[in-house]
Every structure is written in structure tokens, then in C-alpha cells.
């Protein structure tokens, strides 16, 4: 199945701009479904970006992050062709990981 992570990393000189969009319900646990039952909390807690063996960005998320979450940041010290490893884990033990080439 296609990865739940879409990531775009573009190097611009020494700065690499990273955008990520992740397919995840990010349920808060405070919403009821059509039948009136509470949809249990199900959200990504940690999202990590690693490049050249080093953490370049670590996100700790709560239930207030939007569905299909999106994040953008930039970092120095990488160049075109380097691998950017992206991985997340959620409160139900779910996880996914992918590796993208910096273009």
C-alpha cells in the first residue's frame, strides 16, 4: 500500500526545505460517530526526520494537530541526493516510515 507519508525535500544552497503531509485520522477521542459512540483517540505522537544519521527535526504532537497533518521546516548541512528518513508512531502503536531523496 502506498506510504502514508508524502514528503518533499528541496535543497537550495545549504538550506533544505522539507514539507510533509501524512495520511492519518488524528482522532481526538472527543468526537462521536453517526451512531453516537465516541471515536477513540487515535493520533500521531512523534514524527522524526533524520538525515545523514542525525535527527534534524522531531515533532511531538497532541490531539490538536489537524487530520492528514502537514508540517514544514528547513535545515542546514544536507545536499541534493542525500536521504531523508521520515518516521512516525501513534498512540495505538501504529507507525510508518519512508525515505525520500533530497532533490
Amino acid at each position, binding site marked *: 500500500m*502506498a506510504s502514508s507519508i*508524502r514528503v*518533499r525535500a528541496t535543497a537550495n544552497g545549504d538550506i533544505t526545505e522539507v*514539507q*510533509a*503531509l501524512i*495520511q492519518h485520522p488524528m482522532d481526538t477521542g472527543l468526537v462521536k460517530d453517526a451512531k453516537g459512540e465516541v471515536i477513540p483517540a487515535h493520533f500521531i505522537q512523534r514524527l522524526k526526520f533524520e538525515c545523514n544519521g542525525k535527527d534534524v527535526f522531531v515533532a511531538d504532537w497532541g490531539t490538536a494537530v489537524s*487530520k*492528514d497533518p*502537514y508540517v*514544514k521546516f528547513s535545515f542546514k548541512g544536507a545536499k541534493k541526493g542525500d536521504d531523508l528518513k521520515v518516521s512516525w508512531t501513534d498512540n495505538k502503536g501504529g507507525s510508518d516510515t519512508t525515505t525520500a531523496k533530497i532533490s
Partner: protein
Amino acid sequence: MNARFFLLGSLSAALVAFALTSPRVIAADKVDPVADAKAFQNFFFQKFPTVKHEDFVNGPYSMNEDMKRQWQEKEEFPPYEFALDAGKEMFATPFRNGKTYADCFPNGGIGIRQNYPYFDTGEGKVVTLELALNRCREANGEAPYSYVKDEMASLTAYMAFTSRGKPMDIKIPDDPRALAAYENGKRYFYTRRGQMNFSCASCHVQSPGERIRAEILAPALGILNAMPIYRSEWSGMGTTSRRFVTCNSQTRAVPLEPQADEYRDVEYFLSYVANGLPISGPGARP
């Protein structure tokens, strides 16, 4: 007990008198779609002189700078990205009988969205893209998709994406039934319904750019060019059918079944009067 209905009756009679005296009640005139389209577009071009003509297809974002900025930020990595990929994958996945959607559509279904809906002279009715997709599925022994759910939205998202930038190009063939369908769509567009007593025009012609609570109303011109749309309110994709159904229930009118004749005709009318404006689907909306 019947006194109450007598009072209600006379109250309604007063309303009728008021409605009939409104100045512009004109005898049934000849239906002229070309003139309609020109008048329709000029109405918006004059009402919003600063809005570039092709920007009308961006709905509320052509009406409000703050909203446009929020939208452009979202467009850098739009939420309909997943539906687009799913649609592309579905288009490439053959049915059980080995055929694919490409076999049902001219040019393999690529870059043709701007010609939908079209009037099918054989059937004597308007055929929308969503209807054609389901008919293609049924012709190939597959179960049809729901008109208001994600699968249909993914397919139409992909087909719209392949037509991005192409001007809307809807034809009305020389067939009295086509003219009747167009006129029926126009009537539906201007007819008030629901306990709120709104027509599509009450919001999208009389008050585009105004707010209904958090949302800015989109102009009717080019309003379908961005379909299907990912709506934050639905936190999911929405087809044209879903938009018509939810708009109805917002005015407290019981919606018709998706792809009812009235919905097909109003889509035909709204697409025709937007001829020349670019396709911008799939879109992201509040």
C-alpha cells in the same frame, strides 16, 4: 381549529400579492443561452472589477485576501493530494474484465473534464462526469460507486487534474430537449427552496464575498470549475453531487437523490455560463 388555517391562508395570500407585484415579472421569453452566458459573466465582471476573470474559479479565495493567503499556504501541499494519487491509481487499475476507465472515455479520459456535463442526444438528457464514470463501471461488470463518497471524488479529482487550465467548453446541441434541460437548470438555480427560502442565487449571486459565519460565499461564476473539492468542513473530498445535497439541507430543503435530473440540469447550466473560464479542480475549500 380551522380558524387557524384561515389566518395562515390569508397571511400567505398577503405574501403572494407582494411577490406578484415585484417589478420584473416578464412573460416567458425565448431561451437564449449565449446571451445568458454573456450577461451572467458581465454581471460578475462588473460587480467585482478588480478580480481577474480567470480568478473567479477560485471561489471564496477570489473574494478575500486573508482567505486567499491561507489557501495558497495550503496549496503548497494540498489536502486533496491523497485523493489525486488514489484516482490516478484507480484509473490505471483494470476492471475484472481487463478493461479500464480509459476505454470508456475519449482520449483515454485524459484532459476531457472541461467538456462535462454534455447533452446526450440519444438519451435526451444531460450526462455528468460522475454519471459517465458509474456507467463505465456498470458496463464493465463493476458495482457503481456512491456519488458522494471518496472513490467517486478520487476519480473525478484525477480527471479534473488532467484538465487543469483548460477553458470550460460545454456545448448545447441544436436540440429542443437540450435547450429545455438548460432552462430547467437555470430555473432550479434561481428557485427559492427550503424553510430558509433561499435559492442558489440568494447566496452565490446576491452576496458572494459576504460571510456566512466563518465562510466567505463563492461567486456562482466558475463555482463548479474547481470540482471535486476537499473541504476542511468535511475533512474529506466532496463531489459536485455531495455539494448540491449539502447545500440543499443547509437551507432545510430535503435533498433530491444524487444525479437527479434537476441536479444534472443545474450542473449543465452553471458549467455552460462558465464557458471560457479555466478548470481548476481538484480544489481545496473551507
